[in-house]
């Protein structure tokens, strides 16, 4: 039998390969220099990420490994986000490195790079198997990173919680994937789409199995995204994990979940029809999850006293807003998801970086320790306020445009399709919850600015952390006023996901 040998086309994979090799370089360097190298490991990692970004710009679009690795607009867009998240996480980790992780810098950065590699592979996958591998390569290093303070009970506990949830959710996902594979006879999403078009599936009417598979997959990815009812782990893990890891988790891991979701549900299963479940129905299902996330996340965030926990609940709510873009199931909906994540990268990584800087200095993550900070460190407080206001969606910061885009894409769809009044409700509830969101974000600002006492701390950030804060602020302000390039970039995504009209 003449077996067609697939073309490897390894060049398209160059950034990933480079990043992986660089992870090994970083860890070897750390070992060879007898762990005594100051911040050099960190700068080395930043350099590697920058080079990977450069390579990403150079390789261009194309396919490798037959159809298992595709570098298209979606992939490039999300890879940029993941590299950005890695860059900002590393940038905000220098303080932690000096104080807490003195002897394991190499491992930390290597794990972070490997996790980033996993996210990048995931972005390029077009097929269940590589989606699974990408997700695992993303999360397994993150388990270890969450538990990185080996002697800190909180950190280890958060690591083990993340591990249990992560392993459980990926088991659910694989099981769902196995059903999808059985029903369509392929792991390739494009072929699955074709199979769904042929309404006669190989095993006759397996509608219920299909629904089961969808639920398993949705639950598995829901865990990664921390969508209610699968959200309980997030606050614990965010609180216990080292702050740069929590930051990386909030954007990177969420991005990974989103891209997996977009690939499997929005792209792969778009054509899925059965008497039991029209696409609109599972749009509604996601809509309900999104509403639950927005309401729960925002309401529970109000009573948090630990800023990391508060940001965790806020990130649950943000996941809800992002999922609204998915509900639209339209080209602009997907573009809005990408745009939202891109903006979220700046605002959220910035906020976490600020929290990390403050924590390194004071050892506290309590909101009340921020009291009166505006008097001693006005610049730092202003920067923090900008991030929080962007997360709250106050114009002219970029977070507002992101929210606007997500909601506008749903309203657009709702106006075109019949039987869509629930979408308006979703938009209404979503916007209403932003009032709650404003309440707790403004609360932090209130503590920093309005408190009568003067803070005993004066914030001094190390240079890389300053750079991260600056990148965040510039991103939030610049893309709030001139979002056009990113919007174009994000619109490109939808051309790669093959939508039916």
């Amino acid at each position: 039998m003449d077996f067609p040998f697939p073309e490897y086309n390894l060049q398209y994979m160059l950034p990933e390969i480079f990043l992986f090799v660089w992870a090994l370089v970083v860890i070897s360097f750390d070992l060879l220099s007898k762990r005594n190298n100051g911040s050099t490991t960190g700068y080395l990692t930043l350099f590697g990420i920058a080079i990977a970004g450069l390579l990403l710009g150079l390789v261009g679009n194309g396919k490798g490994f037959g159809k298992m690795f595709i570098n298209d607009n979606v992939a490039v867009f999300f890879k940029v986000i993941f590299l950005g998240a890695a860059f900002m996480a590393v940038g905000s980790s220098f303080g932690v490195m000096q104080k807490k992780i003195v002897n394991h810098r190499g491992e930390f950065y290597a794990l972070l790079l490997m996790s980033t590699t996993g996210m990048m592979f995931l972005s390029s996958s077009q097929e269940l198997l590589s989606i699974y591998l990408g997700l695992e390569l993303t999360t397994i290093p993150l388990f270890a990173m969450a538990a990185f303070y080996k002697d800190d009970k909180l950190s280890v506990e958060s690591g083990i919680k993340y591990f249990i949830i992560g392993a459980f959710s990926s088991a659910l996902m694989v099981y769902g994937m196995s059903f999808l594979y059985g029903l369509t006879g392929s792991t390739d999403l494009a072929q699955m789409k074709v199979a769904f078009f042929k309404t006669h599936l190989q095993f006759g009417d397996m509608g219920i199995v299909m629904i089961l598979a969808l639920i398993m997959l949705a639950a598995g990815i829901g865990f990664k995204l921390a969508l209610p009812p699968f959200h309980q782990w997030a606050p614990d893990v965010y609180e216990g994990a080292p702050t740069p890891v929590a930051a990386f988790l909030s954007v990177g891991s969420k991005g990974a979940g989103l891209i997996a979701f977009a690939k499997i549900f929005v792209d792969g299963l778009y054509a899925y029809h059965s008497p039991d479940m029209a696409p609109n129905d599972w749009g509604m299902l996601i809509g309900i999850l999104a509403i639950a996330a927005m309401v729960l996340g925002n309401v529970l965030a109000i009573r948090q006293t630990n800023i990391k926990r508060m940001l965790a609940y806020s990130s649950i709510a943000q996941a809800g807003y992002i999922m609204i873009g998915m509900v639209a199931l339209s080209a602009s909906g997907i573009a809005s998801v990408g745009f939202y994540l891109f903006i979220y990268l700046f605002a959220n990584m910035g906020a976490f970086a600020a929290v990390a800087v403050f924590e390194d200095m004071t050892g506290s993550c309590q909101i009340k320790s921020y009291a009166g900070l505006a008097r001693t460190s006005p610049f730092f407080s202003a920067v923090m306020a900008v991030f929080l206001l962007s997360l709250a969606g106050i114009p002219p910061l970029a977070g507002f445009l992101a929210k606007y885009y997500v909601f506008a894409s749903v309203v657009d769809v709702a106006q075109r399709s019949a039987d869509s009044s629930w979408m308006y409700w979703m938009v209404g509830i979503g916007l209403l919850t932003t009032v709650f969101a404003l309440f707790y974000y403004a609360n932090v600002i209130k503590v920093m600015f309005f408190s009568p006492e003067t803070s005993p701390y004066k914030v001094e950030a190390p240079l890389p952390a300053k750079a991260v804060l600056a990148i965040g602020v510039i991103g939030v302000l610049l893309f709030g006023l001139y979002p056009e390039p990113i919007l174009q970039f994000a619109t490109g995504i939808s051309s790669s996901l093959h939508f039916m009209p």
Partner: protein
Amino acid sequence: MVPISAYLIVAVVLFGIGTMGVLISRNIIVLFMCVELMLNAANLALIAFSRSLNIMDGHAFVFLVLTVAAAEAAVGLAMVITIYNNRESINIDRFNILKW
């Protein structure tokens, strides 16, 4: 020939046992074994589908799932040891410093 439904039923049973175990068990090691059980249920389903469809993708999937499970086990067991050093216990009810 054994019909495919038989394999699938076994897989469902295994998966059910695994899921229940994860939800009920309080011991991390048992809990972890239950996750492995779930993965193996998925593997069984994949193999069965692969055989009956006569498409080899499923086999490849299983190998990779096994590999990933091994990697997961390596990280997971290391963390179990760490937490045991930390807390002298592997009962998840004791891991409650962070509100669960």
